[in-house]
């Protein structure tokens, strides 16, 4: 199956799975560790991938949330993410996809402008987080946010669906005047 679908399997009992897609393997690993350290009522499963499509021979649980990690210092990572976006089903974007941009702190090393990533997130109507994954404090904060988001996307928070969360996060994504 080359295209990822959101509700293709039965969910695991009390399990929530997140898929982190990005080219920075070491940092993704660190982020995954930070997320596992978080206090969470549900069991977390974190999958890391360099790019989509995922190999179809592996038996993996249902994916509740995909985070695309873009490194603002490397154009290749943006290209990679854009390529991978084509292998995601449209229904995933109803709150189960997010973008994480790293490296915005070092303005001099950025080869991708912030606006490019903002535009990308706006095009796919998904939330965008900025984080410097190399700093432990920031990593822990973003891990906390991701765990909460994941819980909601997996349906473990009664009364809030992924789409509700997405609507609530909308405020930072008001369309720019040029989009109108």
């Amino acid at each position, binding site marked *: 199956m080359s295209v990822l679908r959101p509700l293709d399997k*039965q969910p695991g009992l009390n399990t929530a799975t997140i898929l982190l897609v990005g080219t920075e393997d070491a940092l993704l690993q660190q982020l995954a560790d930070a997320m596992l350290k978080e206090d969470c009522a549900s069991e977390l499963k974190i999958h890391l991938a360099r790019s989509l499509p995922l190999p179809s021979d592996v038996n993996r649980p249902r994916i509740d949330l995909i985070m695309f990690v873009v490194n603002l210092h490397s154009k290749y990572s943006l290209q990679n993410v854009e390529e991978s976006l084509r292998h995601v089903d449209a229904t995933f974007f109803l709150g189960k996809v997010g973008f994480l941009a790293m490296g915005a702190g070092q303005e001099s090393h950025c080869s991708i402008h912030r606006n490019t990533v903002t535009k990308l997130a706006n095009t796919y109507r998904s939330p965008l987080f900025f984080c410097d994954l190399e700093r432990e404090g920031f990593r822990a904060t973003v891990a906390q946010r991701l765990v909460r988001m994941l819980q909601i996307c997996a349906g473990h928070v009664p009364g809030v669906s992924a789409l509700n969360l*997405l609507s609530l996060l909308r405020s930072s994504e008001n369309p720019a005047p040029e989009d109108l």
Partner: protein
Amino acid sequence: MSVNQQDLDPDSTTDMEDITDAEEKLIKECEELWKDMEGCQKKLSLVGTETLTDSNAQLSLLIMQAKCLTAELSQWQKESPEIISLNEEVLVTLGKEEFQKLRVDLELVLSTVQSKNEKLKEDLEREQQWLDEQQQILESLNVLHNKLKQQVVTFSESRVFDELNTKMHDIKEYKEKLLITLGEFLEDHFPLPDGNVKKKKKNVKESTAQLITLHEILEILINRLFDVPHDPYIKIRDSFWPPYIELLLRNGIALRHPEDPTQIRLEAFHQ
């Protein structure tokens, strides 16, 4: 609590059954829900997939989101809340969990509020200090201001005017005094030569004009110097007694015109 204990002990076997009953009920509910989910899953797997490109992403996603939100909304409106199992044990356990969560949350809130409080106190102290310093500055400035005020004498136009008037009056008086003294001095030491004219009647031409005193010559010279500064020269008239002119010229009080020997001027002593 002790009364309850006594009641429970003889009924311990039935109590265990109650617990297992409650458990079984819960498990049954879960199984039913799981079956429902499997049914939904089957329906979902029949829906086709669709990928997005950059160009059509925004619009199609917005439409999709709108549809899903309306569907969710209608679902919420249809649904009526289900009561959870009314079994005592279940409720007690649930209650305990809720209270634990509440306690943790309240502790968080407490610590946040406390730290905010402390920060506010620090801010207040800092602002207070600043205020005190500013007040001190204000006080010292006020003192300085008062001091300066006292030193400055009030300016009144009329007073200055009066002062100038008196000055002028004094100077005029002095001038008058000087002129009188000069006149007296000149009269005493440089009188008009009445006697001499009579002796040398034959040789000397009789001056047709009356001779004027040295005082008057000086007056004419002074007036000319101040009336017409760019041309302070006057022609030597017959009424000037020549020896006196010689006297003035020799002593540097008067000067001849460089080109015309019949003109003299007063030396500009004031420049």
